[in-house]
């Protein structure tokens, strides 16, 4: 039977899978970029190091994002959903998305399709930011309800 615990375990598993993928992506960045450049229709040999560095720099906010997601899930697991701490993690997640968007935007200077990544990351950041605002309001309401005697 599907329940809340199993759903949380599934979410955690996805985070670990993405973390493993990210580590693999960073470790084999050179190989991945080589293959990408090889099969690309456009001549990209000159900008290969930029691709590798974009992956390296972009992996920093990605790790922070995944770890914040993990911590947020831990908060949900123990029942501390509408707390200042969960709002903090949502804020971090939102900002890491925006940082990722900026990195991708810088990447457009040598490879224009990075623009799609930048737009997707910025939109994701915006969605999480609105979620963070909702959670912050919920924290105020919960505090008021908790202190109503």
């Amino acid at each position: 039977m599907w329940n809340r615990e199993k759903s949380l375990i599934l979410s955690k598993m996805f985070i670990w899978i993405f973390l493993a993928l990210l580590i693999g992506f960073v470790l084999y960045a050179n190989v991945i970029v080589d293959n990408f450049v090889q099969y690309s229709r456009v001549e990209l040999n000159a900008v290969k190091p930029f691709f590798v560095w974009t992956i390296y720099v972009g992996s920093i906010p990605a790790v922070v994002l995944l770890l914040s997601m993990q911590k947020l899930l831990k908060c949900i697991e123990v029942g501390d959903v509408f707390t200042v701490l969960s709002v903090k993690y949502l804020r971090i997640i939102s900002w890491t998305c925006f940082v990722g968007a900026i990195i991708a935007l810088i990447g457009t200077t040598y490879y224009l399709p990075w623009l799609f990544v930048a737009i997707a990351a910025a939109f994701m950041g915006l969605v999480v930011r609105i979620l963070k605002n909702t959670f912050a309001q919920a924290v105020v309401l919960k505090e008021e309800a908790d202190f109503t005697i």
Partner: protein
Amino acid sequence: MAIIVNLDVMMAKRKISSGELAETIGLSQANLSILKTGKAKAVRFSTLEAICKALNCQPGDILEFRDDGEVEA
């Protein structure tokens, strides 16, 4: 805060302990402590009624408004 809770004063006048009052009005000691220390954000009419009944007093004996000159932004 502009609203002052004088519950401890009234309890002292009626010579009733926190535990005794909490039991009479059906409130936990922790919640009564929140109310006494002025940390509460709101008081239910039902709670106020129970306190007034238990202490044989008026809401005005427990709650007091003091203008502290704070202007809300």
